[in-house]
């Protein structure tokens, strides 16, 4: 049995560590690239969103490398995602790949869906072994996200553009290769130190922009043209709530205790949207309300034809809390030059707004 799964950011690294420790043969398809996208677009129904197309491309590339068991998140009560595994399996079969799809119930059972899947894949390995492997994977995930948070800060301030990215790429590689907790810890502190020592502009406080929107397009840089990096190049500090490590932390340890990371956000959204509408639509509205005072602006990422985000997009301009929002719809037609122009214009607008605020003058509309 050779296991394959789609990419989403660096999530393959913790899974690789996990599967290695459980002796599961894990096939990693090439990180999402133009070919992945072309494959996905070619074989997908046209009206589907970019997460479907890219993950299908990943799965085809995994199948080409010999994977016969493919993992795909799913479950009831969310957006179209619950239907994806079913459709992708049919597409792969029609293409002649003899693969088995395993739907991982992340939305209903949260992390326990993943644990169940691992138990199944590892031929019923003892729970003690699974938990210890899982813990190691989780540590890698946490290390990755911790470093990424620092990178988001450094990118906006570094004197030589690209230093942080270069270090981040090296850190990702080192974390991937780390074999035990000690090395991992050393790698983590070492790279965070290095990042903190990067030469920075210190005089000005950079603009603060929040990234909100749909889970996949926020977390997969290929699908959003690596927008965080582009904003960093423009000297903007980026913040986002969505980190996979946050999600695992809450769904594994805190959700069972009744603590929910999104409660605060949902409460903020209540006056405008009373209920969960699937996907991340509720959170998008809530985050806009919540961050209106905190940030200079928001970049709202949504896949084209995403149902929950369309609802959110219709509601967001009508909130009392005002903050500039740039909605970027991600699909296979999203091109770099156009998007960069929009980003530059957006950042100009935010700068002007901040200057006029500093001068204590009302913004001229």
């Amino acid at each position, binding site marked *: 049995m050779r296991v394959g799964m789609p990419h989403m950011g660096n999530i393959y690294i913790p899974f690789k560590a996990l599967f290695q420790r459980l002796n599961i043969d894990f096939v990693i398809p090439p990180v999402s690239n133009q070919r992945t996208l072309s494959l996905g677009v070619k074989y997908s*129904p*046209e*009206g*589907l969103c970019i997460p479907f197309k890219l993950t299908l491309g990943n799965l085809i590339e995994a199948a080409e490398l010999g994977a016969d068991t493919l993992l795909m998140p799913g479950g*009831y*009560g969310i*957006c*179209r995602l*619950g*239907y*994806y595994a*079913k*459709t992708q399996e*049919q597409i792969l079969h*029609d293409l002649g790949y003899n693969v088995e799809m395993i739907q991982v119930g992340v939305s209903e059972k949260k992390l326990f869906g993943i644990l169940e899947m691992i138990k199944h894949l590892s031929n019923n390995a003892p729970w003690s072994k699974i938990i210890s492997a899982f813990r190691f994977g989780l540590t890698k995930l946490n290390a990755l996200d911790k470093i990424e948070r620092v990178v988001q800060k450094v990118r906006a301030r570094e004197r030589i553009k690209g230093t942080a990215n270069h270090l981040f790429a090296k850190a990702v590689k080192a974390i991937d290769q780390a074999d035990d907790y000690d090395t991992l810890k050393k790698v983590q502190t070492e790279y965070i130190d290095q990042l903190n020592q990067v030469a920075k502009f210190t005089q000005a406080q950079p603009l603060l922009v929040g990234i909100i929107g749909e889970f996949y397009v926020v977390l997969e840089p290929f699908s959003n043209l690596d927008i965080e990096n582009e904003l960093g190049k423009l000297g903007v500090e980026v913040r986002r709530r969505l980190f996979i490590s946050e999600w695992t932390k809450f769904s594994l340890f805190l959700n069972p205790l009744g603590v929910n990371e999104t409660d605060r956000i949902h409460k903020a959204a209540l006056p*405008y*949207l*009373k*209920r*969960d*509408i*699937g*996907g991340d*639509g509720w959170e998008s509205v809530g985050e806009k309300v919540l961050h209106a005072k905190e940030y200079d602006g928001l970049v709202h990422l949504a896949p*084209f*034809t*995403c*149902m*929950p985000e*369309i*609802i959110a*997009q*219709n*509601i967001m301009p*009508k909130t009392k809390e005002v903050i500039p929002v740039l909605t970027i*719809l991600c699909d296979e037609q999203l091109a770099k030059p156009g998007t960069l122009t929009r980003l530059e214009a957006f950042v100009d607008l935010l700068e002007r707004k901040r200057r006029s605020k500093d001068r204590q003058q009302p913004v001229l509309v």
Partner: protein
Amino acid sequence: MIKIGIPRALLYYQYYPMWQTFFEELGAEVVVSPPTTRLMLLNGSSRLVADTCLPVKVFVGHVLSLVGKCDYILIPAIRSVKSKIYNCSKFLGLPDMTRAVVPESPPILDVEIDVNRGKRSLYQAIYKLGRHFTWNPFKVRRAAIAAWQAHLNYLELMTSHRLTPPQAIEKIAGVAEAEPGTHSSQPASTQATIALIGHPYLLYDEHINHRLIHRLEQAHNKVLTPEMLTAEELQSATARVVGRAYWTYEEEVVGVGEHYLRSGADGVIGIMVFGCGPDSVMMDMVKRQAARLRVTPFMSITLEEHTAEAGIVTRLEAFLDMIDRRKRRQSKVYA
């Protein structure tokens, strides 16, 4: 008397008799918006972001046409009507979205229906809706039971008499149709039997689909629609293709498609709108199934605001010609 506005869009075609009975039992008057017009669609789409789907734009147009004509507007948020089968996000966000984009609308009655939360919360939701008219829970209960009975009668009427929802609504409630006699009795000599699959709000809104049923019948074709199948037929057909249904409306697309693709129709036409989330996957399932079975020709038409009448007519003619040719060839071979 309190006037309740019901937009003639989206779920109207499925639940109108039920809603009407409920409100009339509680002593309210029901106002239905007129059939869709070009202006309504334009008004609706001017309020929404461009990539909102066509039926929702139409819906907002209907809400706008009801402004000033009623005291409340009924916009339910229907999450789930069957255990573990869910609705599209658009239906869940409908009340809140309408409130945001039509600030001048009368108060919105947004009852949330989710059977997964158990009977108690369902009853509470119904009572909360009834509270706008009476404090007496027994009165609400009586209205709800009458409404449910009306709904069952409506379904029964459609399957037994082979009626489309607008025909059945006309028969029960006396709501005048856009053009009386559009879905007239079947012509004497039938060219072909064409099955239509898709959501009721696409098949029966003549403005959205450019009078598709009318056109097919004019060309002497017999038209079959999803409502003409019984629940059992739908369920077993759906199970053959996808196992357990995921969407509320999976049966009327995938199930009906599978049923008619196997037997009973000379051709199947799938109607969907551009940007519809569930349909983009479900129509693809039907397309794949049609290609696998190779029994009945299948065509899917994607509608949007810019769909031109001429284009649809041309595609329909080509499809019907193809079916005609196919029938003649078959009769030659097997004669």
